């Protein structure tokens, strides 16, 4: 392998990893607050991709209008899901909540298959973003650069929200101790809704960027990214936003580099994430940046 192909793969890994990171943040935020794997997150991502597809390819809206509508609708979807499927189970055992999340995911997939048919729909390409330019021997698609930049900007904004604003402080408080936060007069429902809104908005941006890179939408497109991004969140230490970013990047790089170095293993591409997950959980059950959790009796 030449130096050039290696650099090329690094760029691919960076853009894939940033996409994973964007989606993983949604998982990590919800898990931090509700202690719930939001199985539906990957399907929220899928719905966002369809919103974009309809805006651009069916209704021919300008891209900036489409993006705003997509983000808005996705946030609405995320908040609605929380309101309808998770809030009534707030006092129920954790298992019920988890099953409800699986149910929502199953429902979204089936509704999408029913409404939009199971066939993949081709997404119009953005020549501006996909026509490669060359640096030395490297051919780079602009989108591969745009994704990490957008991801970086959004993450900075998110960290600002979490660390500097009132809502962010409330989120952190709820994540540390749900009951005490409630006693302190934090409006739990509002905080959880805003968490879902932010997580879904990031998933929406992730979906838009994903469609630029892989221009095709289908009802089950959210499943594999959803699982991988959850894994990314766990690798980084679930509940930790920086950890989710780190996990996403590790996953993106390892996937791209594995395919590049061992082309024979391409078929196992989707398995590597799970292998990493098991290894990490065996040696660092709380992830790379996670805090040790104390067992409560």
């Amino acid at each position, binding site marked *: 392998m030449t130096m050039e192909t290696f650099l090329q793969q690094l760029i691919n890994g960076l853009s894939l990893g940033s996409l994973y990171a964007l989606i993983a943040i949604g998982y990590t935020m919800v898990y931090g607050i509700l*202690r*719930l*794997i939001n199985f539906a997150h990957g399907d929220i991502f899928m719905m966002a991709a369809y919103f974009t597809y309809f805006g651009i390819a069916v209704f021919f809206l300008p891209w900036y209008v489409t993006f705003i509508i997509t983000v808005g609708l996705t946030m609405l979807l995320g908040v609605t899901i929380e309101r309808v*499927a998770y809030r*009534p*189970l707030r006092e*129920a055992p*954790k*298992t*019920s909540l*988890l*099953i*409800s999340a*699986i*149910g*929502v995911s*199953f*429902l979204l*997939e*089936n*509704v999408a*298959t*029913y*409404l939009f*048919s*199971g066939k993949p729909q081709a997404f119009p390409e953005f020549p501006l973003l996909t026509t490669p330019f060359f640096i030395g021997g490297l051919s780079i698609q602009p989108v591969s650069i745009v994704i990490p930049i957008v991801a970086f900007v959004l993450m900075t904004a998110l960290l600002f929200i979490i660390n500097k604003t009132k809502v962010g402080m409330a989120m952190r408080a709820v994540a540390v101790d749900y009951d005490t936060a409630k006693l302190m007069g934090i409006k739990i429902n509002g905080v959880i809704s805003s968490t879902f809104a932010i997580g879904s908005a990031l998933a929406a941006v992730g979906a838009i960027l994903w469609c630029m890179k892989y221009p095709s939408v289908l009802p089950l497109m959210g499943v594999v990214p959803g*699982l991988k991004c*959850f*894994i990314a969140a*766990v690798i980084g230490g679930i509940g930790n936003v920086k950890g989710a970013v780190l996990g996403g990047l590790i996953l993106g790089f390892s996937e791209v580099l594995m395919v590049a170095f061992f082309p024979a293993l391409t*078929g*196992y591409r*989707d*398995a590597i*994430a*799970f*292998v990493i*997950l*098991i290894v990490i*959980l*065996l040696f660092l*059950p709380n992830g790379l940046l996670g805090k040790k959790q104390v*067992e409560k*009796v």
Partner: protein
Amino acid sequence: MNETQRNLGTYLKDHWKTIVFLGIVLLGIGLADIFVDSYLRRLLNLCAIYVIVSLAMNLVNGFTGQFSLGQAGFMAIGAYTVAVLTVPIESRAAIFYLEPMAPFLANIQLPFIVALILGGFMSTAVAFLIGSPCLRLRGDYLAIATLGFSEIIRIVFTNTQSITNGALGIKSIPTISSLWWTFGIALIIIIATILLINSSYGRAFKSIREDEIAAEAMGVALFKTKMTSFLIGAFFTGVGGGLFAALLGTVDPKQFYFTLTYNFLLIIVLGGMGSISGTIIASFVVTLGQEALRFLDEPMAFGLDLPIFRPGLRMVVFSFLLMAIVLFYRKGLMGTNELTWDFIADKYHSIKQALSKNKTSVEGGDKK
């Protein structure tokens, strides 16, 4: 001798209703086996397989409280073991036309029952490998790790072309048509599960479900007990998968996508997490219900030609039902109760009481 005879006598006396019921069930299966047409036969076979796999899942998830989502993967192992080992040798060349079968397997053909049991053990062996890291995790992590493993198994089966024929799958597996295979094995597994649950192992399982830390403090070997439950569950699931392969006559990796697991999840949630009889009832309700809802996928033949009836609607309705059960009917049909004779008598009395109460209140109203 006298002692045992007396014991047998009291046993028969205590359980005569159950024995009569079992007799009726066996007779029913026998009659169905003779008279039922092939479509209904296939459906009933599927019901029995779903009973097996859901019971296995309930053993781990409902009774032991370990949220495992690996069902599809374990089924795949059982199914592929049966498929690979029972496909007639002469038709193998035609099936494995892209890449010939691995030489160490090419000339092995086993009787169905041997392959089936072997499938169960293969699944148990893999469960052992998976269980040792995963069962140390708790709750949600276990769910995602087992889900991941079931996907890895599927990916591995897609890629090991010389053994599993990859994405093409294996066709012309000798099929079973008699109901006795599936229902017989289901009965054995039901009885085994009941015995297991009521043994000291079963009590250890339930204590882990209720409170892991307290169970450990009371001297339950946490990891070992979880592993026992997980391995037994995997064995049953593997056997269920093997029957599944023999019922359909064909296996391919797509059948074992992890959404298959959701079917079983729906069953144990509907039946009640921690109820054997609930699981059995729900297996039939869900399997037959899925079939009964099939009209939703077809254009309506009568009245207005509503465009809402088209492929996919059935699954939408189905997933709505799952959500409705989780949200409004969380305990499922049975909760953690069992459909025993006492339970039925209790219910009967309470219904009778409720009815007579209504009656008196109505009479009271009349007097006024």
